């Protein structure tokens, strides 16, 4: 096994068809009556020093993806390849050795730091566990880490409760950096912080990425934060990636109706913004009983519009106004198997039959290379 530096031309991390199911147990004998498909077939690559942003609403499975990759939650199936090695095959000592390179930063900086430990020990513990340094040498490393994340050396003697939220998140970052990882899962690292503090932490993470060539899986629900921070963005819905593209491309030219809805729903600090807003009807369905066909179809505005057009026997191209620009949606009417009525949120809608019955694959769409979306309707 080689522990050499990662090669830039090869993916640092390859995830293929990752599935993580949680059993639903009922009754006296705790029989398994079904599964919550928290992650249901997710694939992506992350290259050294690059950031993949993972965005979606609560319950979409984005946090479980991050935890499954680090095997904090054991995945049900799929493969995870780290620097060409099958990460899921490792056990015991070897697993620990590999884990050194993969760290995580959590959302809540208070519950992820042990309140009874001094900051110096919190940061120094992984260094000691992995046998990197001891005694004075370890203390020097801790001091250097504290300075790097914008804290003072003397802070090593204080306890987590003595720090503000932003400072605690800096401690979490210092702990993650202690083992010089190549890869860090950032799970909503700034969601709990005030706006004025948020940007400090984002800038720190960006600087570290550049200095140390760290790759990030950056999990967040805030689209602007994700766009700002990521090279590539994957949008998740009900355990699946529904769209993936370079950050700029995804925001300029979204292909999946859910991405459009997310982008147009995000409130922007501009009181004069005037754009058509797409508010998807209803709410995210339960991952225990995902809808058949395309999981988004009960809330999808595109399939509703397309079905109306098709029903009226009108043109096969529908235009959708989205953030001031028009998106064309093709309607291969012969292909969609006609339309059908569904019930969603207590109301009835007409949708394309294909959307309600067949799950669309994540496939390349017209536009920039590497732009994938799982949608029957968009061209």
């Amino acid at each position: 096994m080689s522990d050499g530096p990662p090669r830039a031309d090869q993916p640092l991390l390859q995830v293929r068809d990752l599935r993580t199911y949680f059993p639903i147990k009922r009754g006296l004998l705790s029989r398994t009556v079904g599964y919550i498909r928290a992650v249901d077939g997710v694939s992506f690559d992350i290259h050294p020093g690059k950031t993949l942003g993972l965005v979606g609403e609560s319950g979409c499975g984005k946090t479980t993806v991050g935890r499954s990759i680090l095997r904090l939650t054991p995945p049900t199936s799929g493969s995870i390849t780290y620097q060409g090695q099958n990460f899921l095959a490792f056990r015991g000592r070897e697993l620990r050795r590999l884990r050194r390179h993969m760290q995580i930063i959590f959302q809540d900086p208070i519950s992820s730091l042990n309140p009874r430990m001094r900051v110096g020990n919190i940061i120094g513990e992984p260094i000691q566990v992995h046998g990197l340094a001891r005694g004075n040498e370890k203390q020097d490393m801790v001091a250097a880490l504290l300075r790097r994340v914008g804290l003072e050396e003397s802070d090593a003697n204080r306890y987590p409760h003595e720090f503000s939220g932003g400072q605690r998140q800096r401690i979490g970052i210092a702990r993650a950096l202690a083992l010089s990882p190549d890869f860090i899962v950032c799970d909503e690292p700034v969601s709990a912080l005030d706006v004025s503090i948020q940007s400090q932490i984002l800038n720190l993470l960006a600087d570290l990425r550049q200095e140390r060539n760290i790759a990030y899986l950056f999990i967040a629900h805030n689209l602007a934060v994700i766009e700002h921070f990521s090279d590539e963005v994957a949008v998740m819905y009900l355990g699946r990636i529904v769209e993936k593209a370079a950050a700029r491309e995804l925001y300029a030219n979204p292909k999946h109706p859910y991405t459009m809805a997310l982008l147009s729903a995000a409130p922007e600090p501009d009181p004069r913004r005037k754009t058509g807003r797409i508010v998807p009807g209803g709410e995210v369905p339960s991952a225990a009983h995902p809808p058949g066909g395309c999981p988004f179809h009960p809330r999808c505005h595109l399939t509703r519009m397309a079905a109306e057009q098709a029903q009226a026997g009108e043109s096969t191209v529908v235009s959708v106004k989205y953030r001031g620009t028009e998106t064309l949606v093709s309607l291969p009417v012969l292909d969609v198997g006609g339309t059908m009525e569904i019930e969603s949120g207590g109301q009835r809608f007409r949708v394309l039959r294909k959307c309600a019955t067949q799950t669309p694959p994540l496939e390349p769409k017209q536009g920039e290379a590497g732009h994938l979306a799982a949608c029957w309707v968009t061209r």
Partner: protein
Amino acid sequence: MQPLLELRNLTVAFDTERGQIRAVQEVSLSVYPQQTLALVGESGCGKSVTALSILRLIPSPPSRVLGGQVLLEGRNLLDLPEKQMQSVRGKDIAMIFQEPMTSLNPVFTVGEQIVEAVRLHQNVNTKQAYEIAEQSMRDVGIADPDKRLHEYPHRLSGGMRQRVMIAMALSCQPKLLIADEPTTALDVTIQAQILELLRALQQQRGMSILLITHDLGVVAENADAVAVMYASRIVEYASVYDLFDAPQHPYTQGLLRAVPRLGAVGQRLAAIPGTVPNPARFPSGCKFHPRCPKMNGDPACAGVEPALRQIEQGHWASCHHLPDFANKPITRPATDAKRAEGSAVS
């Protein structure tokens, strides 16, 4: 025009073991009929304490109102006997909170809870109250309200619970709704639904909203006027357009620059250095001076707390470094500004 709600120099303190903490200092604001005033600020700035003080919902002790008035249509709520205050709460002023789960009682159905509020304030029998409850649930966009009335809160999603809270708050047709971070716990698509609902209900019923939030995006979309709070004081006050077009206070300017915006891939964010001050240890002078880029060693910033002065017509700010600041008049901030028709997001 007469404001519906007016705060005059409200100061609220908490007595703690380590001494007195002034969480809200000399806060003045006015909410006009059919207006949405946003009170925006970061954690610990005093925005929620201000809101709770209006309804006298903070227990005393430990809190104490050290001075000021809370005027609802000219009547000082701070002087009312508790009995009369109870009829103000819910009937004249209703409030919704950030966490709709903890503000609903888990052992009663949502219908029972709305009916309780209705019967408390309106002279109706149970059957009529249920009809009112059903109608108000329909008004907030809950499908099948006749069935949902009989559900317990845990059966509802977060967005649905917030709709129930709004239905309950609006069931007695209040004149003012205080919404304390109403969408912070919700996902963006659900947030968009709730903000749109609040806008529509406000238009239909002509009520006023005091919107407490930390999210400048929510402010930009829903507010007519904005009060920015920092470390217990209002530091800037203006119409929503003036505030976003020409922010005057360095804190407001910093906040607006620090928000990541869509369409800005890979740019470095402007950050405000330092941390939000702890209310127990506020800095001297201007409370923003340790973090302020304009301070530049100016002894006035560290020594003298600037008053909120009227910089221009309808625009107030408190910063020694504004041009000709010392000669601007000290007046109570109030603007009945409304956002232009149709400029709200459709």
